[in-house]
């Protein structure tokens, strides 16, 4: 190719005009504000599941709760309006996003049989049935109707209940009702926090 002077002028004019129109800029961009990843994210209040302190958290999900969107967690941080922690979190609480987005997260019930070394998968139905059968068996075998002095006590001392810090008042109420109905006296639900 051997462009004439006329060709050269034409090409550079067209090229220059195109560059101007499409916003070609040789100058480096000095500042591009990083996008705030939670700018329009949905805020959902929750409670940290770890210790008995029960810190309030905010779970940030993308999507505006429209029908066709499955919310995706993008960030978790402390809830500034929660009286316990006022926005702060400990390192375990600060890593809650990894609790949700984790390859090793347990998504279905598992059982380790007596004497077994491996965890086996079990369906929810089977798990509930098995638990119910064991509760019934244990209660039938160990139910104490009367104590040494002959007083009626109706106790099941072989079963205990341990609750967690994220259990709500309503849930704890139901737990106490259910457990008392079975005669369970060893109840611990962290209700003091």
């Amino acid at each position, binding site marked *: 190719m051997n462009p004439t002077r006329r060709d050269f002028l034409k090409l550079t004019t067209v090229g220059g005009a195109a560059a101007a129109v499409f916003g070609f800029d040789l100058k480096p*961009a000095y*500042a591009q*504000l990083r996008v705030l990843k939670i700018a329009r994210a949905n805020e959902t209040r929750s409670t940290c599941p770890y210790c008995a302190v029960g810190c309030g958290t905010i779970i940030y999900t993308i999507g505006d709760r429209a029908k066709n969107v499955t919310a995706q967690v993008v960030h978790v*941080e402390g809830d500034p309006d929660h009286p316990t922690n006022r926005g702060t979190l400990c390192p375990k609480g*600060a890593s809650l996003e990894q609790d949700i987005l984790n390859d090793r997260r347990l998504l279905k019930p598992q059982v380790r049989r007596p004497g077994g070394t491996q965890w086996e998968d079990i369906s929810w139905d089977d798990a509930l049935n098995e638990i119910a059968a064991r509760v019934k068996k244990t209660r039938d075998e160990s139910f104490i109707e009367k104590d040494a002095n002959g007083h009626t006590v109706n106790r099941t001392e072989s079963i205990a209940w341990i609750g967690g810090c994220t259990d709500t008042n309503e849930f704890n109420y139901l737990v106490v009702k259910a457990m008392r109905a079975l005669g369970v006296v060893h109840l611990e639900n962290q209700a003091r926090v």
Partner: protein
Amino acid sequence: MSQETLRIQKISGHAGTVAGEGTQREYTICKLIDTTTCIGCKACEVACMEWNDLPFGETIFGNTYQTMPETRWNYWNLILFNEHEREDGSLMWLMRKNQCMHCADPGCLAACPSDGAIVQYTNGIVDFQQANCIGCGYCITGCPFDIPKLNPQTKRVFKCTLCTDRVGEGLEPACIKSCPTGCLHFGSKDDMLDLAEKRAKQLRDHSNYPNAGVYDPKGVGGTSVVYVLHDAANPELYGGLPKDPHIPWSVKLWKGPLKWLGNVAMVGGLIGLFVHYLRFGPKDRDEEEMKAETKS
């Protein structure tokens, strides 16, 4: 020009004026780190990783609770656990949250040769623009606190951004928000210095730390990260915090007099060449040389 560009007061490797210099009325923001109430829980480390979506790496055990020996390109915020022996022989921990200090007179920015790879905003944040980074690593030698780290794969340098995205939208940095003991504070520089001085006085008067004081080194023009130390006379105890940090003299020399000397030499050489041409004209070849050439 974006609005953000107007918030810039210093640009690395930049010839000419800076668009935002003196055009915005803004206050300097500041992080206050009270080392006396830090319990080394590392919530700030985790919050930093979570907010910035940094990829996870291996931790290194060095016989202390410290996560790793020093910050990495993908680990911007590290609590240094320093065991210190008191005069009476008992032990205490001097824990320090180590991250970019966001100097008012940043050594990294002075050393950087790439136009716009490092900028300083009018609120005091020193920010790396990886798009303009050429990976030379001069900022690493320019930093008196050994903070910028090179990602060997992408050949770009990274460090704490003081959460520019959060601060720009009116939020506090992620580490500040998480701190459960309240040893981290965030606000304007004036307010933080005020708070720091009050705390230092409290430590001197009531907590038997007669040397307690505030760390806001003047050698780098003050910093946007301020410490309260039990022993302000010996900041080296806190994992090698320099007593009087300043930009390395090699960087100062190279970016100051040597740069101008080089410019003068280069431009002077060109002018000299031109003057020489005007005065003496083009070089004539010797006649004998011409003869020798035609013979061969």
